C-alpha cells in the first residue's frame, strides 16, 4: 500500500513541476497512525509584541505631551525640552520603531472615515487626536519634543541658514499637496504613502530599502543647514497642527513679559518662525484692496477649476490602486496589447473571481478617485487663495512674536530675550532697560 503511494508520489513529482497554484489544503496523504509513542508537536504561535505596549504607548504619549507643554509654557526650559526630545526619539523612534506615529495615523483615520470595513484601533484614534488637542491648548509642543521624526532632525541642526521667507512660503505649499494626496490615497484604499515615503523610519529600524535610507540621509544632511526640512516643507500632519496651533489657547511667547523690541531674538529661530513687528503699513493700500477683490471674485473659479482638473487626474491616480492596476493589466492581457502574464494577473485568474467583478470594483474605485479628485483639487485651490489673502493682508503689531502657525515651541528663542534673562536672574533689570533705551 505504502509502496504504491510512494510510486504515485514520485510519478507526480517527475511528471509535474510545481506550476502556478494557490497553496491548497488537500489531503493527498492520510495522516499516519504512529505505532511508536510519538506525539505530534504543536505549532507555536508567539504573541504580537504590540499587545504589551498597547496602552503603555498611549501613557507615554500623554505624559510626553504634558511635559513638553509644561516645559515650553511654564518652565521655559530648552534643556529640559531637549532631554525630553531625546527620550522620545529613543522611545518612539528607536525602541518602538516609529510605528504607529501620529503623522501616519492621518491615513488610518481617513481610511476609517471612508471604508466601513476597516476597523480602526482606539489607540490609533488617540494617537491622531491627542497631539491635536494638546496643540489646541498649548501650540505645537508635540513637534518640539514628542515627534521622533522631528527629534531626529532637531539633533542634527548645526548651522541653520535663513531660508528666504518667500521661498519658505512657496515650499510651505508642499505639505498641503502631500496631505491631500495622502488622504486621497488612504481613503480610497490605494495605500499609505506617508508610511511608504517616511524618510526616517529606516533609521529607527536599522534597515529599509536603499532608496528610503538614501532619502533619509540626504534629508538629514540638508537638515544641518536647513533646520527640520521634513517638518517645515513636507510633513502632512504639520498642516493640521499648524491650523490647530493658530487657534491655540495658550501659545509660547518669546518674552515672558513685555517685548522691548531689542531685536536680539530676531535670528534666534532656526525655523524662521519669528514675526517681526509691523509698526506701519508700508503698502499701497489701494493696490492691495484691488488684489483682494480680484482674489475673492476668482476664488470660486480657482476652487472649481482645480477640482475639475484634479478629478480628471483620477485615471493616473487610481492607477496606484491595486485593484485598478490589476484590472488594467487583465484588460491589456486579455485584449493582447501586452504579452505574457504577471504574478498579479496569474493570481487573479487562479482566484476564480470574474473579470466583470474586478472591473466593477475598479470602476467603483475610479469613481471614488473622481469625487476625491474634486475635493482634493478644490482644497488645493482654496489653500492657494487663502495663502494669497494672508500674504496681502497686513496686520499691525508692535512686538516680536512667535508665528503661531509655524512655531514648534522648541524654546530656543527664550534665552535670547533680555527680559527672560532678567526673569531667570541672570541679568540686572537695569541692564535690560538700558538695552530698551538704546533701541
Amino acid at each position, binding site marked *: 500500500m505504502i509502496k504504491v503511494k510512494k510510486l504515485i508520489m514520485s510519478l507526480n513529482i517527475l511528471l509535474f513541476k510545481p506550476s502556478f497554484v494557490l*497553496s*491548497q489544503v488537500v489531503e493527498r496523504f492520510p495522516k499516519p497512525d504512529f505505532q511508536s509513542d510519538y506525539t505530534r508537536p504543536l505549532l507555536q504561535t508567539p504573541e504580537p509584541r504590540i499587545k504589551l505596549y498597547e496602552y503603555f504607548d498611549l501613557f507615554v504619549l500623554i505624559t510626553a505631551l504634558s511635559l513638553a507643554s509644561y516645559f515650553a509654557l511654564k518652565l521655559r526650559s530648552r534643556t529640559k525640552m531637549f532631554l525630553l526630545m531625546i527620550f522620545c526619539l529613543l522611545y518612539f523612534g528607536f525602541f518602538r520603531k516609529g510605528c504607529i506615529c501620529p503623522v501616519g495615523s492621518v491615513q488610518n483615520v481617513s481610511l476609517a472615515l471612508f471604508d466601513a470595513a476597516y476597523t480602526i484601533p482606539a489607540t490609533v484614534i488617540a494617537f491622531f487626536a491627542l497631539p491635536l488637542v494638546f496643540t489646541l491648548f498649548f501650540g505645537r509642543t508635540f513637534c518640539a519634543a514628542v515627534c521622533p521624526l522631528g527629534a531626529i532632525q532637531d539633533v542634527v541642526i548645526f548651522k541653520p541658514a535663513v531660508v528666504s521667507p518667500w521661498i519658505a512660503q512657496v515650499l510651505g505649499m508642499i505639505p498641503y499637496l502631500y496631505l491631500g494626496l495622502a488622504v486621497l490615497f488612504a481613503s480610497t484604499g490605494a495605500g499609505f504613502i506617508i508610511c511608504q515615503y517616511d524618510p526616517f523610519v529606516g533609521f529607527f529600524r536599522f534597515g529599509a530599502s536603499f532608496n528610503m535610507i538614501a532619502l533619509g540621509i540626504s534629508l538629514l544632511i540638508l537638515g544641518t543647514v536647513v533646520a527640520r526640512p521634513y517638518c517645515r516643507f513636507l510633513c502632512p500632519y504639520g498642516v493640521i497642527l499648524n491650523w490647530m496651533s493658530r487657534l491655540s489657547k495658550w501659545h509660547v511667547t518669546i518674552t515672558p513679559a513685555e517685548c522691548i523690541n531689542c531685536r536680539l531674538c530676531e535670528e534666534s529661530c532656526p525655523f524662521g518662525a519669528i514675526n517681526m513687528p509691523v509698526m506701519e503699513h508700508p503698502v499701497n493700500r489701494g493696490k492691495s484692496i484691488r488684489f483682494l477683490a480680484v482674489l475673492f471674485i476668482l476664488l470660486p473659479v480657482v476652487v472649481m477649476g482645480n477640482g475639475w482638473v484634479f478629478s480628471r487626474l483620477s485615471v493616473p491616480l487610481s492607477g496606484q490602486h491595486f485593484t485598478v492596476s490589476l484590472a488594467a493589466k487583465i484588460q491589456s492581457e486579455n485584449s493582447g496589447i501586452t504579452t505574457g502574464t504577471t*504574478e498579479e494577473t496569474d493570481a487573479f485568474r487562479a482566484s476564480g473571481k470574474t473579470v466583470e467583478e474586478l472591473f466593477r470594483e475598479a470602476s467603483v474605485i475610479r469613481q471614488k478617485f473622481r469625487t476625491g479628485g474634486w475635493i482634493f483639487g478644490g482644497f488645493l485651490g482654496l489653500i492657494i487663495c487663502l495663502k494669497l489673502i494672508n500674504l496681502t493682508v497686513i496686520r499691525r503689531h508692535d512686538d516680536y512674536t512667535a508665528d503661531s502657525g509655524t512655531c514648534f515651541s522648541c524654546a530656543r528663542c527664550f534665552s535670547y530675550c533680555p527680559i527672560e534673562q532678567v526673569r531667570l536672574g541672570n541679568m540686572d533689570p537695569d541692564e535690560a532697560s538700558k538695552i530698551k533705551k538704546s533701541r
Partner: protein
Amino acid sequence: MAENDSKNKVNRRDVMRFSLNTFAGLAVGGVSGMLITNSNSREMVWQIDPNVCIQCEKCSTNCVLPQSAVKCVHSYSMCGYCDLCSGYLEPGAVSRDTGAENQLCPTGAIKRKFIEDPYFQYTIDEELCIGCGKCVKGCGSFGNGSLYLQVRHDLCLNCNECSIARSCPSQAYRRVPADSPYILRGDEGAKNSS
C-alpha cells in the same frame, strides 16, 4: 480713541480665536467620536492568508527587516509525514536523504527526522527560514498543504502599512485582531478559531 479702537479690535480677534478654537476642538472631538463607534479596542496586526498566498517569494525580500518576519510554519496535525516530502525534497531529487543537492530549502531550514517506518518528521528552524515559500509551493502542490507561511509576531514590527502587503501580488495580507493574530490550518487553526 484710536487706542480704544485697537483694543476693541484685539478683543474681537480674541473672541473670534476662542470660538474658532472651540470649533476646532469640537471638530477633532467629533471626528474621533465618529471613529470610536466603528473602532476596535483591540490592536490590529498583519497576517498572511495561506489560502490566498501564491508563494511568489516576495515575503522574503520585501519585509523591512533584514531577515523577513514571515516564516514557514508547519501544522503537524495535517502532515502526512511522507518519506518523499515534496516540501523538503527538490523536484526530481536523485535520492531521499539530507544531502544538500536534494534539499529544496535554500537555507537548509527544514530538519528531517526519522520517526518510524515509513514516517519522517519535518521541523522548521525559524532562525534560518527566510520565508521564501519554496517548500510551501512543493507541499501545497503535491502534499497535504501542512507547510504554509505566517507572519511571526515575535519578529514583526507591525508597520502601519506592511511593505510586503503593499507588494503582494495576490493581496493575501490583511489586518487581523492582535488577540487572534494567526490564520492557521489543521487542528491548530480549528483550536484557534474556536
